[in-house]
Structures are given as structure tokens and as C-alpha cells.
């Protein structure tokens, strides 16, 4: 059963529309990650699901009932905020127990739940501390605990890790993933960090300007991006985009040999050829780009090289130990199966399998 369904959600503030019809079906127990640049409407979508904002049009359905007119507490959801929002004047115990205040469990049941959550989060010894006596990671865990204790149908996370430092972030990311595997509730997780999205999600939802651009498994959005925006947003460093025109089934770059396209594109049309730095290497068979190396970034096993070509600057991946020198002219090639073709006007993918 779908635990959450969004049907054509629209949100308008005064006269500006920030969500233009968001539709999504989330399976029970799925881990969904919303990604997109700042201001694209991720938080707004989450707040509509939570009931903190009223929908202008469309429906939110949780566990089979339309909840548009229900208050947040009646929706069987819990939310974790970016800055935790744990109450500074209450102990950890009170903070976690706060979510149960209005439930009709007995006192003993509430206690048992609380102990349970505390032990899962390894916070049992911290229960009597105040938030000011906790580290950033521990505070975040309290915030998660407060959501967990209610065992909601859907967990909503709004950039919960963005205030943590890089190391803690990686660690909490892993903890959240383990937590999900253990408790199995549906999770909607908002982030603008694409690594977080790739590592956590069962399915990624990529948003831009209030539209959903693509929904898919991490490998799908990585290997079969639906458009140039998704292609550029997912994966670091970004996919190289090369302008070319189509001539008799061949893509023609600013210079260099033509590339055989195995898709049907009308004559004279402009297309964008996308190739990830990971797939673009110096030498190899059938090179189609030629240029001078301007910058090298050693990553250990590999070296990223920035190459100036007639089609613009591209990034390629070279050997970690014997990369080409700066100023050296290199020939770049990529496997034909790793090339992506997009319509230059609409940005939409023209690949047959997209």
C-alpha cells in the first residue's frame, strides 16, 4: 500500500506560485529523498505534507486517507527540523517524551517507548541532561528520538544534517540509514547535498523551481538523467556538456571527428552531448576531443584534469600516478554507451532508454 500520495500539489504565496503541481506516490517503508537547489520548494512540499501550511490545490493522502483538512497531529507524521528545535528548557527525557504528551498510551507504555527509543539511539545515559550539555550530533539524535517515539506512518526530515560538520554528517547519515533499516517507517528526507541523496535514498526526487524533474532510483538518475539539469545536479564533478549539431545521424562538435548517434534526431537540430568526468579518459580508442590540460586535481587513485577544448572546458579523469602534465595536449575518449544526448532547446534527454 502506498503510505503517502501527493496529487498535483500547488502552493501559492500571495501571487507567486512556488509549487506547480507535485505528484508522487510513496510505497510503505520507502526512503525518499528530495533534492534540488535552494528555493526549489523542497521544504514547502514537506510542510504541506506535515500540515504546517495549507495547500492551494491538490491532495495529500497518508495511509489511504486524504489529510488536507487535518491538523499536523492528526496526520500520523513526525518531523525533524534543520536546527533540531529541541526545547532548551527541558531535559532529553522530557524532549523525547514530549511527542507522547497527547497520546492515549498508559504511563507505563510511554515509559517503555521512551526507554526503547533511547536505547536504539544510544542515549540512555543522557536522558537527564539539558540540550545545552549535548554535542551537535547528540542534539540531532534527540530530535530524531522525539520523532521516533511516536512511531509515525511517515517521518519527515528537513535537511537534518546540514548543521553538522562533515565527519559527523557522514556518521549520522549512516546512523539514519541503519535506523531506517531497523524501524522500517516511510521516510521523506530533504537535502540539497546530492551525495546524501545518492547514499540514503531508495528513490530520489529531483526538484527545480517548484517542479519535479525526475523520480528514480539513485542509479537511474545517475545513469539515465531525464534532462540536462538532473545530469548536471547529480554526480560530482558535474557532467560535461558539449554543444553539437546533428548531421545525418552524426553529432558534430566544434572540432574533431563526428560521433555516431544511435538515435533518431532530425537533421540540423542542436543537441547537447553529455559525458561524466568519470567516463572521459585521456587516450583510448576513438578519441573525439582534443585539448590542453590546464589544471590537475589529484584525488589519490585518480587525478581530475581540466582540459581546454574547442568545445569549452571539460573535466576528465586520468590515472592517479601518471597523469598528463599541465600544458600537455591530450586526446579524450569515452565509451559510446556512456554518452548522453539532450535536446539543446528543451534540455530533455533524447536517449532511447531514458
Amino acid at each position: 500500500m502506498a503510505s503517502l500520495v501527493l496529487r498535483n500539489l500547488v502552493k501559492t504565496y500571495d501571487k507567486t506560485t512556488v509549487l506547480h503541481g507535485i505528484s508522487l506516490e510513496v510505497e510503505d517503508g520507502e526512503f525518499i529523498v528530495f533534492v534540488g537547489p535552494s528555493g526549489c520548494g523542497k521544504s514547502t512540499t514537506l510542510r504541506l505534507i506535515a500540515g504546517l501550511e495549507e495547500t492551494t490545490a491538490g491532495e495529500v493522502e497518508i495511509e489511504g486517507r486524504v489529510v488536507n483538512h487535518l491538523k499536523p497531529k492528526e496526520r500520523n507524521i513526525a518531523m525533524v527540523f534543520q536546527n533540531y528545535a529541541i526545547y532548551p528548557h527541558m531535559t532529553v527525557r522530557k524532549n523525547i517524551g514530549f511527542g507522547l504528551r497527547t497520546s492515549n498510551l498508559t504511563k507505563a507504555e510511554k515509559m517503555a517507548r521512551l526507554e526503547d527509543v533511547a536505547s536504539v539511539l544510544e542515549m540512555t545515559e543522557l536522558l537527564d541532561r539539558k540540550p545545552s550539555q549535548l554535542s551537535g550530533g547528540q542534539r540531532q539524535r534527540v530530535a530524531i528520538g522525539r520523532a521516533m517515539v511516536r512511531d509515525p506512518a511517515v517521518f519527515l526530515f528537513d535537511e537534518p544534517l546540514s548543521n553538522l560538520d562533515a565527519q559527523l554528517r557522514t556518521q549520522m547519515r549512516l546512523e539514519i540509514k541503519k535506523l531506517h533499516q531497523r524501524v522500517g517507517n516511510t521516510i521523506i528526507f530533504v537535502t540539497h547535498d546530492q551525495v546524501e541523496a545518492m547514499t540514503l535514498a531508495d528513490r530520489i526526487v529531483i526538484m527545480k523551481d517548484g517542479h519535479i524533474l525526475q523520480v528514480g532510483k539513485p542509479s537511474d538518475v545517475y545513469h539515465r538523467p531525464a534532462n540536462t539539469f538532473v545530469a548536471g545536479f547529480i554526480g560530482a564533478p558535474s557532467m560535461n556538456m558539449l554543444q553539437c549539431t546533428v548531421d545525418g545521424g552524426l553529432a558534430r562538435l566544434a572540432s574533431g571527428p563526428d560521433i555516431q548517434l544511435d538515435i533518431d534526431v532530425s537533421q540540423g537540430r542542436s543537441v547537447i552531448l553529455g559525458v561524466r568526468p568519470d567516463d572521459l579518459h585521456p587516450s583510448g580508442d576513438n578519441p573525439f576531443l582534443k585539448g590542453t590540460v590546464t589544471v590537475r586535481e589529484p584525488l589519490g587513485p585518480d587525478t581530475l584534469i581540466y582540459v581546454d577544448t574547442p568545445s569549452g572546458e571539460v573535466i576528465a579523469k586520468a590515472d592517479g600516478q601518471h597523469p598528463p602534465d599541465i600544458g600537455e595536449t591530450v586526446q579524450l575518449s569515452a565509451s559510446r554507451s556512456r554518452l548522453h544526448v539532450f535536446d539543446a532547446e528543451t534540455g530533455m534527454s533524447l536517449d532511447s532508454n531514458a
Partner: protein
Amino acid sequence: MGSAVAQIRASSKTLLASGRPRTSASTGQVIRWLILFIGGVLMVMPIAYMISTSLKWPHEIYNLALVPNEPHLENYTYVLEDGRFYGWFVNSLVIATITTISNILFDSLVGYTLCKFRFPGRYIVFIAILSTLMIPTEMLVIPWYLMSQAFGWLDSYWGIMFPGLMTAFGTFLMKQFFETVPDDFIEAARIDGLNELAIWWTVAMPLVRPALAALAIFVFLGNWTAFIWPLIVTNSVDMYTLPVGLSSFGDEADVQWELIMTGAAISTIPTLVVFLIFQRFIIRGVVMAGLKG
């Protein structure tokens, strides 16, 4: 092991170094101290004279010496044995306490609403409240009096209290302080299932405790020392507040300053108590502790 000892030694050395008193002060510092000293003296002088006068005999009160020639406690005995003093004290205490509680509840309720809810006319309401700050109390006294007369509130607690049960200043202060409470706290509580009144009381109010303490001190002192309005609205000696009552010691020809000063000295005690109780709540940074670290 050895390195640990060395480390302790090193850190105790830096401790000593930083704890060593400065031997000389710069000119800037001397000037700063001088200004603070003068300010301090200006603040303390009236209080010193109040206490000194309360220890003098009537013939000595126009002698400006700070130390009385024959200090005595007769004035205190007289004031404390005069039954009227207790009545006035209780009147003032009841009025100041009720007014303080009322301000804390209602100023913050209105301030919270204006700050955290979006509703049409919100801005106009706020401006209207603010604009009342620009009307001096003296101008309001006559309308208040006519109102009290019409409703039969003259010479009653209610008559003394009603103009101050809520204040524009307090509302403004609380609104500004609620701005520092992040909406996330309120939304988190909403998701946790609290109703709006419970959110205000259990989540928002504890987060602005320092402001509430400041407001409490401010309102209590204001009402404890209020003079003009209580003087106008009360008729019977029984209903006088402490400042009004004290000023009535003596008659028009012969004001008994030593008794007034004695009463005033005693009446500062509750203000000190209130200040000491509430100032410990004025600890900054309480709000931030629950947010990102």
C-alpha cells in the same frame, strides 16, 4: 606519564600567567573608572540621604550632613507602629503583584499573537498599540478619572489598577522577544499535538523567560512607586497606596520629611526582593541552547 606531568605543569604556568594582576592601568582606564565612580555616587546619594534623614530628629533634617548628629530609630518605631502604614503597604503589594502577573500574561499573549500569527490587520493593530506609547500619562488621567467615575471604580483596587493591567510597552517588548524564538520550535510543538495556547505556555513562554523577568521587574517597580494616578483615584486613607500614604504624613504646613523618608526606606525592601528574585532569570542565551550547536 612524564609528558602528562609536563603538560599539567605547562598549563598551570599559563594559568598563573593569565591570573597575574596588572600593576599599572592606562589613562583610558582611569578615566573610565572616574566616570563610573561619578555615576555611582550620583545614583547612591539620594538613597544615602533617604536613609540618613530617616535616622534624624525633625530639627536636624535641613542640615545637609550625611551623618546625623544623634542617630536614632524612633522614626522607624513610629512608622511601624502607625497602623495606616501596614494598610498602605498591603494595598501597594496587592496592586503591584496583580498588575505584574496581569502584564506578564496578557502582554506576552498579545505580543506572541502579533509576532507568530499572520492575520489581516496584524500590522495595523501593532501600530495602533505602539502609537499609544506616544500619549503621555498626564493626558490620560482625566479620561481615566471620568471613566472610573462613570463605572463606580473610584476609590477601589480595580480603579487604581485598571489603566496598567496591560501596557503597550510590555506588549512591544514581548513581541520583539518572541521574534527571537524560531518558528521551528512552535511548529515542532504543533506537530507534537499541542494546541496553540499550550504551545504559547509550555514552549514559547519558557524561551523568553529573561524578557518576562525584565518585564516583571519593570512593571512591579512602576506600580510600586506610582503616585499621580493612585493619588487621584483614591479618596479614603484606607485605599491609599504606599507612596500616596507616605506623602500624607504631616499636613500642608508641616511636612514630616523624616517620616516620609523612613517609610520610603522601608518600602524599598520589596523592590529589592523582587529584583533579586527575577534577576537570576535574566540569563542570556537560553533560547539558543536548543538550536544548532
